């Protein structure tokens, strides 16, 4: 139990550093630390699939982010936006936080899975009959590619859309001649 608290506190501290430091590179490295600890935490939460995915995605995201920031922005952009907006946002977000914190009492305690609280949930069927229905030993695989394969089609499409979008945004010749004259 305590190990989860330690890891979560570590993540929160790393996040705070990432948010507050002025140096972009160290900020990104802190985010990397958050991701690495998060991946470890997924492993302890018995989610090895997610742990693998998280760690490789983290590596790739870190490479991309470092690539973007290194040699680009050497100036330190510090400080926040204008005062009124800042105060208003902080107040609103604090209200959301205080409202939200109460809400988690309604959930089952940490360590008691949600699906055990209800009868006839989909997850119980996935666990007890997933192997014979789909033949996949990895139940997460059987869910994402068979029971909820339609979601995965959407997921692949999201990635496709973002790659096409990145190609469009980063294309060499933009070819629009009219609005330049503005």
């Amino acid at each position, binding site marked *: 139990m305590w190990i989860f608290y330690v890891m979560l506190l570590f993540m*929160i501290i790393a996040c705070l550093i990432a948010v507050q430091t002025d140096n972009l590179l160290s900020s990104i490295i802190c985010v990397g630390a958050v991701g690495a600890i998060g991946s470890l935490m997924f492993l302890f939460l018995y989610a090895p699939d997610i742990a693998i*995915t998280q760690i490789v995605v983290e590596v790739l995201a870190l490479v991309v982010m470092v690539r973007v920031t290194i040699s680009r922005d050497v100036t330190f952009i510090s400080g926040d936006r204008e005062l009124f907006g800042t105060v208003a946002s902080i107040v609103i977000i604090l209200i959301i936080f205080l409202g939200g914190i109460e809400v988690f009492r309604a959930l089952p305690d940490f360590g008691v899975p949600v699906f055990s609280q209800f009868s006839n949930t989909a997850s119980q069927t996935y666990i007890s009959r997933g192997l014979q229905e789909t033949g996949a030993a990895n139940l997460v695989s059987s869910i994402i590619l068979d029971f909820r394969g339609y979601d995965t089609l959407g997921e692949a499409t999201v990635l496709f859309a*973002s790659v096409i979008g990145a190609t469009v945004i980063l294309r060499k010749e933009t070819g629009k001649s009219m609005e330049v004259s503005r």
Partner: protein
Amino acid sequence: MMYGLCFLLFTIGLLCAVLKKNMVKIVIGIMIMEYAVNLFLIMLGFRFGGTAPIIDRSSLNLEGGLTQQFISASVDPLPQALVLTSIVIGLGTLALLVSICVRTYEKYGTFDITKIRRLQG
């Protein structure tokens, strides 16, 4: 309590995304929010002393069926499937946001979002 800390992580990310004026910091804020949400979803399915939802030899009995022990110990696989999807979606969003940042930087020479607005007039 764990859920509350997780929500705190979400709030930190939200604050970072809303308040900072550096574009990369805003992207970092969104990344942190994503971690928090993913963690929250996985926590919902966690079971103390459970096993991962992956069947191996030890969880099959002699007839090839599942042992009762596995069925009663496995954590919830559904949130894991959702998180796998949401990690990919997060990566897609990140790629797009970063490319917009890079393009903007090459146009303006800065990541400062308030300066960009001023330059535009």
